[in-house]
């Protein structure tokens, strides 16, 4: 199919139109609008970097970035720990391994909004009741403080997505040649040595993939944030995505929200490009 062939363009027209109208044009407009006083319909003048200067001084926005970064780091660590642990369990020759895979993966199929509501019940009522039963004060009043709201979000995310990360690790674990493990066993390597010297190096690429995948997903989380804590108490558990939505659609500050959205894009892009860079580097080494 050549560039001039009509078939080539016919095959591509629908997606070019869709991507153009839905992503490319709004993205470019958004960049431009972020330097104006655009109110969602019309812009009267260019205001230069005013929005950008303001947003770095806005406490609520900077708090949301900081909260999101902390959340992302905690989730990435927990998710990868559980993802790998679950994968190591279900790739062993145990009777329940298929059933367990099904169970661990299940939360991924259900929307973050619904899961957030379910966990609101767990954290508030179930934790409360267990705390009362065992006399543990720290289990009561969850989601009513910034601290418990933070850990609530981390636990929800780890529970929801660990099964997904597990699947990635499984794909790599099942590719490890059985002979390698057998040979090491015969040579008298302990199970810890086998893990450290064979399994771990061979699943290291999976670690890179999962780390960046979880990092960028945790950065972009919105639904769980909305349904679990709704940003409360006092907007202290509000993440960047939610902050932008609220600036736009609750406070009606469209161009200001758009400037925040541009900063958000830059953060996410840096994370993703770092991943691409590492992947390329690894490919070269291999």
């Amino acid at each position, binding site marked *: *199919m050549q*560039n001039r062939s009509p078939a080539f363009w016919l*095959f591509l027209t629908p997606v070019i139109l*869709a991507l153009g109208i839905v992503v490319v044009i*709004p993205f470019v407009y958004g960049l431009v609008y972020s330097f104006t006083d655009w109110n969602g319909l019309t812009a009267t003048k260019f205001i230069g970097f005013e929005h950008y200067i303001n947003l770095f001084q806005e406490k609520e926005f900077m708090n949301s970035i900081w909260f999101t970064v902390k959340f992302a780091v905690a989730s990435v660590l927990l998710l990868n720990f559980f993802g790998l642990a679950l994968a190591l369990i279900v790739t062993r020759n145990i009777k329940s391994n298929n059933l367990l895979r*099904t169970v661990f993966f299940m939360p991924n199929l*259900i929307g*973050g909004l619904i899961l957030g509501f379910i966990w609101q019940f767990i954290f508030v009522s*179930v934790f409360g009741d267990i705390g009362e039963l065992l006399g543990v004060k720290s289990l009561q009043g969850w989601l009513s403080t910034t601290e418990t709201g933070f850990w609530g979000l981390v636990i929800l995310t780890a529970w929801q997505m660990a099964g997904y990360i597990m699947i990635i690790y499984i794909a790599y674990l099942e590719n490890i040649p059985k002979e390698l493990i057998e040979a090491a066993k015969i040579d008298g390597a302990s199970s810890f040595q086998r893990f450290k010297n064979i399994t771990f190096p061979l699943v290291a690429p999976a670690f890179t993939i999962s780390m960046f995948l979880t990092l960028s997903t945790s950065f972009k989380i919105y639904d769980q944030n909305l349904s679990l804590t709704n940003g409360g108490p006092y907007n202290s558990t509000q993440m960047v995505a939610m902050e932008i939505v609220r600036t736009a659609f609750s406070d009606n500050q469209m161009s200001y929200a758009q400037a925040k959205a541009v900063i958000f894009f830059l953060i996410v892009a840096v994370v993703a490009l770092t991943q691409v860079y590492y992947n390329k580097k690894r490919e070269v080494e291999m």
Partner: protein
Amino acid sequence: MKNQEKKSLFSIEILGIILGLLWIAPFYLMIVNAFKTKRDIFKGVLGFPSEWEFDNFVQAFIDLSFLKSLFNSVLITGLSVGIIVLFSSMAGYALARNKSKLSGVLFFVFVAAMLIPFQSVMIPLISIFGQAEMLNAAGLIFMYLGFGCSLSIFLYHGAMTGVSKSLDEAAIIDGANRFQLFWKIIFPLLKPISVTVAILNVIWIWNDYLLPSLVLSEANATIPLKMFYFFGQYTKQWHLALAGLTIAIIPVIVGYFFAQKQIINGVSEGAVK
């Protein structure tokens, strides 16, 4: 030696089962408490209901206008995923078979668009579609094509490396045009990747909340959207809220039950590539 291995396997199995129980505990607690009365929940959420209350489900079913929301969800997800598969497969094929610089640039643009988070285009997008009076189901489906085509084209493009070019040549010699060639010969060969693409997009679109909340009116609400309104109405009435949540996830569980192997394989393929 053998015995010790058996023993360690057994303890791993026990650990796995404990974790498995922990993983489904939230669902268990949701279902059990959905059967309780308000007073029962107040007395405690850990035990069984003193009597099993079905009325919660009836009321939640009515208040969620569940059949209507289910219909809206099925319609929007089905049509969106249908056109994503249709148009992305064509595009992936065209881009893979054209080795020119232009084709490479286009492919790069599609892949690079994946970097852009939804919030970064959301505000102008809603403004543009609002002015065009396209904030409706049709507009939403078109938006899903725009957001979904990047990853899908990427996956189809990758899968095309496994489809020999001699097939194209043979078909052209036999007098087929490009469309016949694609639909009769190439598309059937891409079936495994089509399943992956469809599964990934179904999971995303079925559960999506933010975009439809900005586009659809309450009358056309999908399940997540309706769930949000419903939940707002019943805060502090956990017996009804939990019954509603249980109803809302039943379609997903049913789907998972019938297609779990394809779903897990599809997700695995989509992630590792």
